[in-house]
């Protein structure tokens, strides 16, 4: 490989050809500040517009300063990252940015997590020498996302994610010059666009321009209300990420501490979404087996591939972009939805509380789940199955508000009867997990034999598209695909449309690496090692579970005995399955 020798801050360094000054400096331990530059290495998510001009450095012999993020190292280059000229320019550019940014850090949802705030502190900003016109946009509230364009610094990370990564294109740069901002077309609200509420725009936003709708106040109010009971569920991916908010290393598994914290906060019933993830496998698995059998019997009308339907952003995606293919995804509700339907019927009856008096809350790594909660079809008589959903970050804030020493909190167990789970459930938190969990159950049901090995390594990994052929002896060589990122999902949908989709079973997750990097998780600020640590932790949690297959979960076996009958029963269909809508824009042609 060709290498380049150069000098950065008086130190010699040799790098492969094509390396940027930013990366070369980083290897030497020299951190050049950046704002627009963003990359989740290995997760296909990047943004390198070279627009913010914070990373400018001085290159000997060059007329102007060079943006380190997009300038490639050249032979014998002499770079100064900290010359007075570079520092003055960097500081002035930052002051310009701040001169069109609200000064409301204390109330900002990004307070303490803001990259602009951190940079202002590092650069020793004490005053902003430029006063002038400030952008004025209304703050927009959607079911999931709060958009405050006044805080937008035009880094365009969100635009890259929305267009290039998700192929949704709900927000993008509009106008030019000073009024330029990232926003939906025609000044519309997100709810009136093709936004699928994946929230990855929030996950990458360096400032407080995009944030989750905050329900922490609701949680505390409902817990304090003596007239209602509160039941909470916690999604799989939350347990491998929440610790980060309390200074624990990425990948710490804090399941027991979460259960303890939720009890300490005052929830009456502390349950686990992992329980309903196992239930999802029973329902979705049964549906899949039914479709495979029909397919093998030569049924031309059966929809193959069957696709997973637990990711709410993915559900929004096919309702808005491919409603004509909405019979392909499983009708099974998401684990959040199944939990909600069960807690508001079976469990409410069990404790003798009307569903309106049982507030069901979910803790999710996700912001699209907030939108899912508001779906009318996921409730009864106008009362939602899940009253509202909070993110991992919101839970962290509540724990901090409640003076709970999370790091040193003794572990507790989830409550029964909706608290027991298996390893198959916890892997729902990563890309490939739902597929693997389904395979563990489907293979045993289809063959009638116990699997010699429960690990399906073929479907694991962090590549955006993975495919495998899983032999189910005597039944089928099952062709499966696992994708994350809706751009990849779009590719599969186009294959189905064209009639050349080679798969029987497809898993789709919207977020990079699956729910572990959901938009409700602690901010990673572009550090992919955090995602990888969470990924490893999920599989560690799986290995450590005494039970690893959903159909072996005793609380699942008993809920069927006590309440649902059998997977796919009429009652199960009524409560655990859903239907999808055509939400695509239509042209109403007038003669």
């Amino acid at each position, binding site marked *: 490989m060709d290498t380049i020798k150069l000098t950065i801050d008086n130190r010699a360094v040799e790098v492969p050809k094509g390396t940027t000054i930013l990366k070369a400096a980083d290897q030497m331990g020299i951190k050049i500040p950046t704002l627009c530059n963003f990359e989740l290495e290995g997760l296909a998510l990047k943004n390198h517009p070279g627009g913010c001009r914070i990373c400018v450095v001085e290159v000997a012999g060059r007329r102007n300063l060079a943006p380190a993020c997009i300038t490639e190292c050249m032979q014998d280059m002499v770079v100064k990252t900290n010359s007075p000229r570079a520092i003055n320019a960097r500081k002035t550019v930052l002051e310009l940015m701040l001169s069109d940014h609200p000064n409301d850090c204390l109330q900002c949802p990004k307070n303490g997590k803001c990259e602009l705030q951190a940079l202002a502190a590092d650069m020793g900003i004490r005053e902003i020498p430029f006063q002038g016109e400030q952008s004025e946009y209304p703050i927009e509230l959607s079911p999931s996302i709060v958009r405050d364009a006044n805080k937008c610094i035009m880094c365009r990370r969100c635009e890259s994610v929305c267009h290039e990564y998700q192929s949704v*294109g709900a927000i993008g740069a509009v106008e*030019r010059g000073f009024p330029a901002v990232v926003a939906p077309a*025609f000044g519309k609200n997100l709810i009136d666009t093709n936004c699928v509420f994946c929230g990855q725009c929030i996950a990458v936003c360096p400032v407080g321009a995009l944030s989750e709708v905050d329900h922490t106040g609701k949680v505390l109010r409902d817990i304090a209300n003596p007239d209602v009971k509160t039941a909470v569920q916690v999604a799989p991916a939350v347990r491998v990420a929440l610790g980060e908010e309390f200074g624990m290393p990425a990948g710490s598994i804090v399941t027991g501490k979460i259960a303890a914290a939720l009890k300490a906060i005052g929830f009456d019933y502390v349950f686990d979404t992992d329980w309903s993830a196992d239930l999802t496998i029973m329902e979705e698995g049964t549906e899949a087996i039914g479709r495979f059998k029909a397919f093998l019997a030569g049924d031309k009308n059966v929809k193959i591939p069957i696709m997973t339907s637990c990711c709410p952003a993915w559900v929004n995606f096919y309702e808005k972009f491919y409603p004509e293919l909405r019979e392909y995804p499983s009708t099974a509700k998401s684990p959040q939805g199944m939990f909600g339907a069960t807690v508001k019927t079976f469990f409410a009856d069990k404790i003798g509380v009307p569903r309106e008096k049982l507030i069901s809350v979910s803790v999710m790594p996700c912001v699209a789940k907030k939108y899912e909660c508001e779906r009318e079809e996921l409730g009864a008589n106008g009362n939602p199955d899940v009253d509202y959903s909070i993110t991992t970050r919101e839970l962290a804030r509540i724990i901090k508000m409640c003076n709970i020493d999370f790091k040193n909190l003794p572990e507790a167990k989830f409550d029964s009867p909706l608290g027991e789970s298996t390893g198959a459930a916890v892997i729902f938190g990563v890309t490939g997990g739902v597929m693997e969990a389904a395979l563990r159950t489907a293979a045993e049901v289809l063959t009638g034999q116990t699997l010699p090995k429960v690990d399906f390594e073929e479907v694991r990994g962090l590549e955006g598209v993975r495919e495998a052929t899983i032999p189910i002896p005597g039944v089928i060589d099952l062709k499966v695909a696992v994708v994350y990122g809706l751009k990849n999902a779009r590719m599969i949908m186009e294959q189905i449309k064209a009639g050349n989709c080679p798969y029987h079973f497809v898993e789709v997750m919207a977020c990079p690496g699956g729910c572990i990097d959901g938009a409700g998780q602690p901010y990673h600020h572009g550090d992919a090692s955090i995602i990888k640590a969470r990924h490893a932790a999920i599989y560690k949690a799986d290995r450590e579970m005494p039970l690893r297959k959903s159909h072996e979960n005793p609380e699942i076996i008993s809920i069927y005995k006590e309440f649902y009958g059998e997977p796919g029963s009429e009652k199960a269909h009524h409560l655990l399955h859903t239907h999808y809508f055509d939400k695509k824009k*239509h*042209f109403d*042609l*007038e003669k």
Partner: protein
Amino acid sequence: MCGPKIKISEANYLKIKEICASFNNNPGELINVLHKTQEHFGYLPEEVQQVVADCLGIPVGKVFGVVSFYSFFTMKPKGKYAISVCLGTACYVKGAEKILDALKSELKISEGGVTDDGKFSLDVLRCVGACGLAPVMTINGKTYGRLVPEQVKNILAEYAD
């Protein structure tokens, strides 16, 4: 439940489809498509952009991004007589702002505006390439040079219909 409905006349819908098809529905031709479309409709309202996006297979946000970026594209209909006042340097030093002020007070609209009767619209642009005639304005492409503010009233009267 159904997705959002976008109302548009069938004739207009087909016309846009035809324009897009003449560019092979190639998203790379977006700007050319928009030029043709604006040439036909006079402006680019939301529903028109929606159809363009649909035909080219791109998010409508991309279309709006381009329309809102380039000053040539407009989402509002222009006046029957579109007035453009040159604010290039040569015109500026020769008092183009006074011409603009005279037009504004005569028409009672500001830059980018259209008179209530839809007759005149007023815009500024940067150099029509007739610096020798400064200050200059154009009305539907016809050039008026070496202007003094007092002429404005009479020139507008030429368009009495």
